[in-house]
């Protein structure tokens, strides 16, 4: 058996599960019911409802990504600074929830945030006014941050621990203070991790439909929901595929922008 035959399963995998499905989406997206070529399904993104859903998805995904980054970077710095044993315990605890089904975890937040939920029970017990969080965009952002935070922490942490202490010390020797060292040495060197993290949070946040359904009460329509409904209840695969193509273009553009900030091009996600 030559080396080439080892690659065969992967080739079969890529053709069967990436190329063919992608070709089908392109085919459905660019045809109508009778099979004739049309751009209507792609142009459908211009209708008021669809465009609004796309912008809303983009906005919520950007906010969630920014919050994840702001939470994850300091955490990764802390993890880097403490001893290996303790940091692996903390990383383990962070990853632990990911071993559970994300649908279940999101449903748990539904129970916590709902009007009669745990959060409001606690507020009531403390004599504070209750809040309505569930079924708002706030709840969706919350769900996204919770679900995707580990995907931001891990790549940043992995890059940070590889930055040798000697580089930081060299900067300090040459007269840089702590702030300067961070912005001119640590941060630029950790960019590949940051870029990976942003991609791994932004893309699922942009395309999710589960989080918005469960925590938005079906009242907030993201582009993922529009596509899901086109495939399921609307039974219009052409529209769903056309909109998926638009979404794909959006994600490609955002990844191209990100790649500019990744000096070594080592972002593999």
């Amino acid at each position, binding site marked *: 058996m030559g080396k080439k035959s080892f690659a065969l399963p992967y080739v079969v995998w890529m053709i069967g599960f990436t190329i063919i499905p992608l070709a089908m989406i392109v085919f459905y997206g660019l045809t109508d019911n009778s099979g004739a070529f049309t751009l209507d399904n792609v142009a459908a993104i211009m209708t008021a*409802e669809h465009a609004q859903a796309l912008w809303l998805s983009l906005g919520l995904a950007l906010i969630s990504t920014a919050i994840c980054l702001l939470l994850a970077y300091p955490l990764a710095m802390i993890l880097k600074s403490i001893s290996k044993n303790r940091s692996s315990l903390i990383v383990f605890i962070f990853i632990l929830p990911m071993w559970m089904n994300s649908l279940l975890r999101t449903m748990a937040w539904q129970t916590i945030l*709902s*009007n009669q939920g745990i959060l409001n029970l606690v507020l009531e017990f403390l004599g504070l006014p209750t809040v309505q969080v569930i079924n*708002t965009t706030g709840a969706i952002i919350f769900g996204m941050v919770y679900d995707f935070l580990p995907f931001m922490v891990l790549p940043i942490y992995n890059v940070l621990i590889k930055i040798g202490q000697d580089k930081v010390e060299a900067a300090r020797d040459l007269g840089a203070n702590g702030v300067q060292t961070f912005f001119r040495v640590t941060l630029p060197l950790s960019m590949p991790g940051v870029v990976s993290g942003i991609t791994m949070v932004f893309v699922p946040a942009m395309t999710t439909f589960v989080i918005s359904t469960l925590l938005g*009460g079906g009242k907030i329509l993201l582009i993922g929901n529009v596509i899901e*409904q086109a495939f399921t209840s*609307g039974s219009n695969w052409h529209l769903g595929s056309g909109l998926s193509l638009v979404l794909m273009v959006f994600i490609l553009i955002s990844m191209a922008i990100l790649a500019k900030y990744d000096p070594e091009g080592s972002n593999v996600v």
Partner: protein
Amino acid sequence: MKKRIALLLALVLTLTALAGCSNAESSQEGEFTPGENGVVKVYNWGDYIDESVIDMFEAETGIEVVYDVFQNNEEMYPIIEAGGTVYDVVCPSDYMIAKMIENGLVQEINFDNVPNIEYIGDIHMESARAFDPENKYAVPYTYGTLGIMYNTNYVTDEEAATWNILWDEKYSQKIVMYESVRDSLTPALELLGYSLNTTDQGELEEATQMLIDQKPLVYAYVMDQIKDQMINEEVYVGLAYSGEVLAIQEENPDIAFSVPEEGSNYFVDAWVIPSNAENKENAEAWINFLCRPDIAQMNFEYITYSTPNDGAVELLDEEYLSNEDVFPDDSVIERCEVFEYLGEDMDQLYAELWTQVKAASVN
């Protein structure tokens, strides 16, 4: 390398042989082993059967049941249409059955294999003609009405006698609607005095605008979660199918149900056999089993949707039969309308209108 593969193959062969042995042994015990008479692939609504019925069916017929569920008709249809997953027997609602018949997705049932059809009341076979004109394709499983479910601690019976309550600002954020376009359009169409089967774009847009106006008052658009939200008193009033009420009342006795005076929808859910079914006779055995009075009674007592099975009704307690929510009297049925299948173009229009409602901003 080759040796390893040979070893692995030998291992697999041994294991399968062993598995074969154990199967043969258990079938000698007299009772059927599920699967020895083939399988039947069932596609039903979620929470729409007493699950012990499935075990009984397997034990009595030796047919293994592969059981899947769907949330609503619109989700079920594309799956059957695509044919990627083949089901032998499915339980859609009236208008969806009409659509499936029109598009040739279901086949005629051989009623020689379904002798228990005699227990289904004539009146129900009659109303099934609305979507299956010659009673060739469908066997009624349940029926009911769409109405308002409300919590009597917060809402009076008079308020709940009209659909207007769903637009009452007093109940802002305490109203739930169904995540299903035709059900949610029903109150608006009834209040406007239009048919539930209207194909007039102007009328539909008017009704859609009502739903958009209503949206700031709505807590959520959901399906099965309505039950929990009503029981926990997260919401006080919502759309509901009559069959949900008994189960909910068991958990929270303050919940009541009404079919508003403006009128509403009357529905029938029935079993059909898809054209591409691979185990038609097993599907017929399944339908026949569910038509057996004692089985229909078990299912009714579990799912509490009214049963069209006269044999089962005879077995029921008076308490159930006198409950008008479950077994509505004729005056209620008279003001209700069965959903008809309106054609592909209308499906698209309804889907677009629903997207407009869902996309409308809440603030």
